[in-house]
């Protein structure tokens, strides 16, 4: 690359940086959309769907080995808020652990109650009011989470990078019932062929076996 072309490339980079400054109208800026919507029809909610995922089949052994934590528990919504880029709505659920099957979680007790770290699952979706407008978002990849139901969860650390915050790994959230475990993931019966419909006891045994290693 010649000096002249290097300068030209540098100028292009500077110009492009100027044209994409933060604060300009970015793609899917929910706050800007809500503001514009409020001026037209504040009564009607704004609805939003999440990005479609590409979930390739995964067996219980790989799912368990690749997850940070595997547990059975219930979920209770505690907060719904705008994501860091303000392009999505996120909801935090408190995880009440019934049975920790694999991995480690922060302890639930501390000498100083204020130091008790949370056990939180963050997922796409939820409902909140922004700029005078209700926004409703849902994850197209899975069914809604129902508070109080028992779930089998395969978790990874949250991308917000806070201790005690988790996200679902590879769509690994299953409703537990007497009929067996049912994936919430759309098309989950094909993605989790050896899990869907199995008895929870069998899945737990497989998870523990996978985490013990060969």
């Amino acid at each position, binding site marked *: 690359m010649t000096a002249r072309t290097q300068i030209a*490339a540098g100028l*292009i*980079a500077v*110009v*492009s*940086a100027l*044209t*994409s400054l933060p604060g*300009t*109208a*970015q*793609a*899917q*800026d*929910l706050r*800007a*959309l809500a503001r*514009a*919507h409020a001026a037209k029809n504040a009564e009607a*909610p*704004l*609805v*939003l*769907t*999440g*990005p*479609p*995922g*590409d*979930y*390739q089949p995964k067996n219980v052994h790989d799912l368990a080995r690749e997850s940070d934590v595997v547990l059975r528990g219930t979920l209770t919504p505690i907060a719904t808020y705008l*994501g*860091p*880029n303000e*392009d*999505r709505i*996120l909801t935090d659920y408190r995880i009440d652990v019934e049975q920790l099957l694999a991995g480690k979680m922060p302890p639930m007790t501390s000498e100083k109650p204020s130091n008790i770290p949370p056990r939180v699952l*963050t*997922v*796409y*979706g939820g409902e909140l009011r922004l700029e005078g407008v209700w*926004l409703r978002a*849902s*994850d*197209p*990849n899975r069914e809604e989470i129902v508070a109080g139901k028992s779930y089998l969860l395969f978790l990874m650390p*949250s*991308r*917000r990078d806070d201790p005690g915050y988790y*996200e679902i790994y*590879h*769509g690994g959230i299953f409703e537990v019932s007497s009929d067996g475990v049912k994936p919430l993931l759309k*098309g989950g019966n*094909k993605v989790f062929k050896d899990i869907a419909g199995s008895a929870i006891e069998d899945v737990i045994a497989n998870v523990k076996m996978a985490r013990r290693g060969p």
Partner: protein
Amino acid sequence: MTHNHCRVLLLGLGLGMGAISNTETASGDSSLLTARPADLCVAPGALEARHRRSIEARPGRMQGCPPIPSGGGEDLQVFITKADASCTVENGSYVRALTLYELHVLAEAYGQCTLRGPDCSPLPCTCVTTGTQLRWPSAVGILLINSHPLSPFSVGPIYPNGVLQQWDSRVPGQASPPGRGWSTSTLGEATLRFTEFIFTTTCNILPSSKVVERTAYVLECKPEWFTGGTPPVNFHGPQTGNIKIVLPSAAFENARASAEAAAAAWAKGLGRNISVQPGYQTCESNDSLCIQLKNDHGTQPGDPVGCASLGTATYNPTTGVWAGSTSVRFEPNWTGGHPDNLTRTIAHELGHYCGLWNREHASCSSAGTIMSAGNCYSPDPPPAGTALGPTSEDVLPVMKSTYGNQVRSTCGW
């Protein structure tokens, strides 16, 4: 004696005239009403003979006893199921190539024709019932109309087993053959035209046929649509308008050629303008025809699994049309991949923008659809034959369903 005979005869003729006139009025033939009494004062038997000769000499005289139609109505219901009865093919839905389907009909046609003839013994002549004909569906023919150069094809008729005014090929013993099998390898739109042929009887009770058509779209790979919401809608970009893809900075310049190739492929498939804008810019939040390249996939909480994604937007809850701009999101380390992989990745995400979901069914391949999984940033070229843009299997579900009849049912996979 002769006088008395004539009086009796006149009395008899009067009854007879009255009886005949009811039908004559209908047929317009009143010649019998014009007979003079003098003509009737003839020897016993002579009048009957004269009338018989008159009727025989003039064929039109037989119209004096026309058949009487009664009733009517017809219906034809069509049932198309997969041969294993696991699903039903709805009109405008999707079926799988080289898969056996059963075609059944419930045919109905009602009405009857009362046949009559003159009874002139004893005189005067009266019309009497000589028989009854039923109006009935005598056959249902099935024709396949598709894009094959030899189309249309006869799938074959179905006949009732006997004279039945209502018969159902699904009921054992009512039809031969008991339904028809249908399978096709010709992809695309296929119309099955069912024609019920109706025996209209001597009374010619119309109509003589009833036609029911069922259209299905024949694909190899199971179609899937990007749906959600309550009530469910199919998310998609606006049906009209020029779609623009924008690069926010020079950092995305390596993706320009791939974006142009993906845009051109979709533009050709959908028959509309989709182009990559020159220079660098960002989308306005509310511009649903604008798609921006980004490189933050996988970094945000709530991001799904996959090597890229469509940054979605708000949508119209009634129509599913995006209400804001969207984005094609690469991973942060997206550079260095083979351009064909990048083309396929962008075309795949544009498929989501157009309303398609991932197509991961075993019937799908990377050659058959752009919506199967790809290797987004591999430096190696994709396998030979891999689709780099939408195939007809991708375009059809968008054009016929998302932008068409909104039918999203499938049968055969």
